[in-house]
């Protein structure tokens, strides 16, 4: 009856040393639409494809602001993501209340890592069915982290998760050396190009299905760095960016042309 004797719960190893429930949770991440994140020296961006269940329905949100210096992109079960998002929001608020500073991004990510790990080691619990890309800035500059249902967290230069994300990752790997020195606008365009790689044939980036999230550490005139708060751009706000990557072939063609910029 069962395809597999070792996947009834998340506390039993298979003889091969695998925990199938956790692997199935990782599959749930691959069902979600693709999200891409890139970090440069000054900014971290998240870009995402939003899906609508049917023509008449609205588009599922993919990017969530957590605190002024952190935002997440999700792939997988949105409801599970909301639990994590609320948790992260609470932690950031609490940290700001007790210490009066932005929560260090690594600390925050490690907290959801530990939280998710608990679900993989207790009988009757279910791992989160969602993967996250966490973009944030702290005193050390911008960061991008990947989070998986297993509780694994890893700092990344650039990454993509979700359906067909391998194509996006291939694009990112090809351009990895460029990201660090990228400007805010270049970084967003790289993100959108990576996103395009993962699109199904004859699908396009549109103002309806594209979300862009940006957070930055901007250098002020007096030498101190100021946080550019995490902000999500949707709808008409992303038109200019989509147009700027509309027809170019991959690899930076068409950069530097004058375009209208939201600052």
């Amino acid at each position: 009856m069962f395809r597999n004797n070792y996947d009834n719960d998340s506390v039993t190893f298979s003889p091969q040393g695998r925990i199938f429930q956790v692997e199935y949770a990782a599959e749930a991440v691959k069902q979600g639409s693709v999200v891409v994140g890139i970090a440069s020296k000054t900014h971290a961006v998240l870009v995402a494809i939003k899906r609508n269940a049917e023509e008449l329905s609205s588009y599922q949100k993919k990017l969530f602001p957590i605190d002024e210096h952190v935002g997440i992109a999700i792939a997988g079960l949105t409801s599970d993501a909301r639990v994590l998002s609320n948790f992260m929001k609470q932690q950031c608020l609490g940290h700001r209340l007790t210490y009066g500073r932005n929560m260090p991004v690594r600390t925050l990510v490690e907290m959801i890592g530990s939280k998710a790990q608990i679900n993989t080691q207790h009988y009757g619990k279910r791992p989160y069915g969602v993967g996250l890309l966490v973009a944030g800035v702290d005193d050390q500059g911008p960061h991008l982290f990947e989070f998986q249902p297993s509780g694994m967290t890893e700092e990344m230069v650039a990454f993509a998760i979700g359906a067909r994300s391998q194509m996006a990752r291939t694009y990112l790997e090809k351009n990895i050396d460029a990201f660090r020195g990228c400007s805010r606008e270049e970084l967003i365009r790289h993100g959108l190009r990576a996103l395009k790689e993962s699109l199904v044939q004859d699908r396009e980036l549109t103002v309806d299905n594209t979300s862009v999230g940006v957070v930055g550490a901007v250098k002020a005139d007096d030498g101190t760095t100021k946080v550019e708060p995490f902000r999500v751009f949707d709808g008409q706000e992303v038109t200019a960016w989509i147009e700027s990557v509309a027809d170019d072939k991959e690899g930076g063609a068409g950069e530097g042309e004058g375009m209208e910029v939201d600052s």
Partner: protein
Amino acid sequence: MDHRPQAWGRPRDDIYGAYDASYLQTSGPKTATQSPVVTGTSVIAIKFKDGIVMAADNLASYGSLARFTDVKRLRTFLDTSVVGFGGDVSDMQFLDRHLKELAIDEAYEHNDDQQQQDDDDSHHKSTPGTALNAANLHKYLQKLMYRRRNDFDPLWNQILVGGLDAARKPFLASVDLRGTAFTSPSLATGFGAALAQPIMRRYAATDEDAARLTREQAVDVVKECMKVLFYRDARSLDRYSIAVVTKDGVELSEDEQLERQSWAFAERIRGYGTQTV
């Protein structure tokens, strides 16, 4: 000897009267620190253009008894901030243990600061690690003290925190046993609020004034104030600790001696003793 083990160690009724064990309450109301016991007196501090200077004497008093004469009341935090304690010494030691733990956790969590900064060119040069700065530490202590007052179990201290804030500017602030927190270009606890603060305010009435003070001037003012406090505060000592915090770290000297004392003024004091004129 009484061979009933139950009676061993018990006070004899015929000598002491019936033993009143009522203080061994098990279901009475819980009591917390009701008043400080062994106490430290003033802590004083002043800002200058690239940091702060803080000082406190090395005395811990038991009421009017000069009980411990070598107690260090200035503590460093992560080598970037200094914390000065007035009030109960046992509560100070509790806080000191607590802050040490916090510092270790903080240093452990951010132990990758160094290597991250090495491979960087311009962006992070001006910013320190993510570790708690003096402003963060002060906020934390304020929450801690306020929490304890809400529980009716206060830590009986007034605390000064000095160092640099997130913008690398001099930071100086105070928090007391009720969680009241405030900042000022110069601060003093206890007797110092009445005796040292007016002197320090002559030199640093505003932040702009403080930003013009040199390190040497600030140290001189603080030393002068410590002398005035020793002249007039009966619970003070002429051995003291002094700390200077700048962006280069904390320089803490814990065994200073008051110099060039002059008690000539004592001759002119009238109205306290047996003098007839």
